[in-house]
């Protein structure tokens, strides 16, 4: 039983660390908020954008005097696309850091933490996940449209404008991937198209050849990629390697730096949410983080700004006291926020609407062909 003493020692160490970690919440003057993001794993590229956007917003807020005189501090947590890690992070933010608000991202992690948010009356704002099931949840606000809007646009574009009427799909086997695939099946069907086959793959996989070979054998006019993060570029490259020559398509989910660099993804048809790569924000981001900004950088910049405005309002109403409930009421009463991507109006279902662009990937950029305006 030589293992036992070291086991006891390890336990003591762990217990010791917990005790040391606890007093961190004691410093009270700054306003602390959370941000649970994909900082590692297949979506780490989104994480760079999201964290960068939030960081830039927090610095601007602090440079102009903070929120009602309080400094804003963002605590970043990593969910690595894993719902259980998101839950741990949320528990820590709620119990240790006592935040009134947290940004969140991805559909499965956001759905997993929403009950904790509602129970503790902490507002969570999702600027990245797009599953339809994220709508109508207490204390969860989405400053991004749900995926069915975008999928509807691309499905109609493919069937009506491009006359591509039969599709095969490769689907990330998680909440977001499956949801987007189902929506595509419906909307593509409604536009006169037909999905011939679908193959599900793990989000963290790196070899998709068997699945792609199977889809290739089914034929079809088009390969629809219902996945996101770095594996989109691997799927695109491996598809071309296997001699799959039909066009590929996806939503704004596929637009990560790896995809822009991938040879296989050239010509992919995509939807895109409004983001101007030549804006002052994008330039500042590039100077600071040495990488091109993306749509999600703006999203988390906006989410932080929305919080700042709502928090100031909440504190004014409640005599300087900031609570999650106060933030929620302020978001509801303000309703419309000015953001870098134009006016953002929260809908009754706690989601947002935006313009959606459609185009083709070419030379590392999306060449926009048309813009579908947000419903009035």
């Amino acid at each position, binding site marked *: 039983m030589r293992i036992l003493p070291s086991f006891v020692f390890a336990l003591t160490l762990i217990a010791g660390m917990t005790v040391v970690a606890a007093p961190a919440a004691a410093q009270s003057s700054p306003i602390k908020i959370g941000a649970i993001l994909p900082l*590692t794993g*297949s979506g780490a590229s989104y994480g760079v954008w999201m964290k960068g956007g939030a960081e830039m917003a927090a610095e601007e807020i602090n440079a102009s005097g903070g929120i009602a005189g309080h400094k804003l501090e963002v605590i970043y947590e990593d969910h690595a696309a894993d719902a259980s890690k998101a839950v741990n992070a949320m528990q820590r933010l709620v119990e240790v850091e006592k935040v009134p608000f947290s940004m969140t991202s991805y559909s499965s992690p956001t759905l997993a933490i929403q009950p904790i948010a509602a129970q503790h009356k902490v507002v969570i704002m999702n600027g990245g996940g797009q599953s339809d099931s994220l709508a109508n949840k207490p204390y969860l606000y989405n400053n991004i449209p749900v995926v069915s809007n975008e999928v509807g646009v691309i499905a109609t574009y493919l069937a009506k404008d491009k006359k591509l009427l039969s599709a095969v799909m490769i689907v990330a086997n998680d909440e977001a991937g499956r949801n987007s695939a189902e929506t595509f099946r419906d909307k593509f069907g409604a536009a006169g198209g037909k999905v011939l086959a679908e193959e*599900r793959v793990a989000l963290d996989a790196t070899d998709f050849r*068997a699945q792609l070979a199977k889809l*290739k*054998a089914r034929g079809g006019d088009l390969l629809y990629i219902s996945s996101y993060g770095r594996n989109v570029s691997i799927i695109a490259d491996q598809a071309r390697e296997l001699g799959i020559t039909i066009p590929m398509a996806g939503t704004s989910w596929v637009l990560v730096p790896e995809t822009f660099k991938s040879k296989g993804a050239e010509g992919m048809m995509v939807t895109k949410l409004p983001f101007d790569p030549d804006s002052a924000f994008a330039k500042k981001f590039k100077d600071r983080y040495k990488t091109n900004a993306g749509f999600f950088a703006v999203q988390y910049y906006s989410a932080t700004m929305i919080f700042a405005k709502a928090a100031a309002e909440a504190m004014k109403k409640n005599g300087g006291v900031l609570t999650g409930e106060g933030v929620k009421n302020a978001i509801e009463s303000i309703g419309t926020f000015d953001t870098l991507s134009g006016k953002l109006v929260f809908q009754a279902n706690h989601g947002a609407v935006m313009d959606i662009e459609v185009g083709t990937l070419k030379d590392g950029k999306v060449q926009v062909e048309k813009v579908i305006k947000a419903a009035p």
Partner: protein
Amino acid sequence: MDLFLQLAATGLVVGSLYILCALGWGLIYGTTLHFHVAHGAVFTLAAYYAYAAQKLLGLPLAVAVAGAIVAAAFSGMLIDLLIYQPLERRGAIRTTLFIASLGLLTLIENVLAIIFKPDPLRMDVGWLGDSVQLGPVFLIRLHLVSVATAVVGFFALMAFLKYSRWGQAIRAVSSSPEMARTVGIDLRRVHLLTYAVGSAISAPAGILLAMDVGVEPYRGTTFVLLASVAVIMGGIGSIPGAALGALFLALLENIGVWKIPSEWQSTISFGAFLIFIVVRPRGLFGRKIHSAEI
């Protein structure tokens, strides 16, 4: 039929990596009876050595690969020298060795994740990444290199064990450690040699993975699990058995997708393993489980 051929070819390519991994693990297990799961860490380390040599030191691909294989061989020897031999000297039982090995695997994986981040890293392969078409089958050149490496690795290992003095010593220890000791073979030195050879033969699998789809810190666990399954299916102590077991698993995993949805991939292979091992506990070519033979 085209699909079947494509899936079989993909299976063969994946199988080459499984074979290399299983050959190394099987040689080590058959000779030392160490359930060396840290072999997975050596496999991953080899990939990171090669990646670091090419991307961080800027060495040419061939030099990076050769250097990584040598470094992996030394890593395997170090594990035996610093972990297993001291444990054995103090009379540790095999389970303790296995737990130590598991601990080491976890440790190395986590350190790699801290240094290199958990995202997959891919080496530059230049023209090896170009497509080749063989009838209805599409591959890239690198895949042909993988298959060739597995074939060469297999025959080189067989020849080494059969014809070289050191190889014969390994076989002697593998078939009967007591007898080998009586005739004056130094068991510790043979173990060290086995770790060097076993690590060197599996290292290319990790490196080829880094060249093809990229290496991640935790990838070794999957590979060592598959390698141990392949070795047990093939019969402990049998080198051809290990290779056949590995090839069978890879083909099953890929061809299985032909008629069954692909999320069943690993369920199929491990299901088949369970059925196989219940029906034939000694594996394909294994004679006795305990005193293994090569």
